[in-house]
């Protein structure tokens, strides 16, 4: 599984990153988590507000910090 956390590096982006890491650990799934800080790359993914979470190319959340239970739900499906 490939997870991308998009954000320029503000407080909410860091929070999102930590939540995603915690969710991956809690679910015990194999996943690579990478950070996207380049606006051009985000725009290509169709993301115009941050933070955003992309799992396997699918945008799961934009513009808000997701809850850990939410992220765990995405990991299961």
């Amino acid at each position, binding site marked *: 599984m490939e997870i991308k956390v998009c954000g320029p590096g503000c407080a909410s982006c860091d929070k999102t990153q930590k939540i995603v890491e915690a969710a991956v650990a809690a679910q015990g799934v194999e996943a690579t988590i990478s950070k996207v800080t380049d*606006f051009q790359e985000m*725009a290509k993914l*169709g*993301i*115009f*507000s941050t933070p955003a979470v992309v799992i396997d190319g699918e945008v*799961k959340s*934009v513009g808000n910090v997701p809850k850990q239970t939410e992220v765990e739900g995405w990991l299961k499906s």
Partner: protein
Amino acid sequence: MEPMKPMKSCADDGDCCSLNNDTNNKKINVRQVSLGLLGLALWYVVYKQLLPFSHFFSYGLLGMEKGSHLGEAIQFFVYDTPKVMMLLTLIVFVVGMLRSFFTQERTRKFLAGKRETAGNVMAALLGIVTPFCSCSAVPLFLGFVQAGVPLGVTFSFLIAAPMVNEIALVLLYGLLGWKVAAIYLGTGLAIAMVAGWVIGRLKLEHLIEDWVQELRAGEAVVIEEKLSWAERIDRGREAVRDIVGKVWIYVVAGIGVGALIHGYVPEDFMASVMGKDAWWSVPVAVVVGIPMYSNAAGIVPVVEALLGKGAALGTVLAFMMSVIALSLPEMVILRKVLKPRLIAVFIAVVGGGILFTGFLFNLII
């Protein structure tokens, strides 16, 4: 107020369950509204006790002499700190809840169909209630461009969003009264509208970085959230924890500085430097304000102290607007999407608006 339902997405994906949701929401509403009202009443009672308490604490309990430097400073601090914190908590909660209705996606969609002028006005107003932080300025800008929002309208939003800041408004109201708060709100909106309109008139679309221009073909991903009232209240609570947790230290520090000036600096000390007669103080205030980057919470108590010591309102307003609206870090971030000339135009137009405001208020008040 009726809950604003995400009508469109409901109709789109077919599983419309708004009926169920509504009855659910109403059940929560009755309990939570009564709890909320109780909390508000309690808040008000405590709020009203702050002034007598500060007098009791400084002059009674500590035995300070009324009118002494230290006594005045302590009373000011003991009164203002809880007062500002209480106002801040209340407003941040309300705005946090309100913001769950105004997502950036909705604002973008709404502004995309607007023409200039009307669009400038709407964008400035939406700038107040749409969630925004300076680190999301670039994606937001890209989204606006991509959705076809006119450049001038986009700028109206980008100017109003940081400048007309609910925290600044609360602090101005709490510390300086509703008139100053209203003047700030009015002129802030006016500058955002006019500056955005001017930038739109100048037809500077070619000064957007080239890679941004190519975006227009792309498609924005929009995920509509369906929020219940309980979740919206949660958002308000989160906002309080987030924002008040972050800015309280600035508030206390700001009021501390204010208290020192209040108690120790002679009454008309500022009049010669920042008074009405010193016309040059307005441009100096604007220029000094640009590299300074403070959030609104930290700057307002200082503003209060300056005003109290004879600084002119126009000069102080110009300084405050410059600090908040023209920030160097935001310029650096915006450089990624704007060519330097457009940034220069942006600074010039907004700076000009602030100068005008400063001179205007020094002249009429």
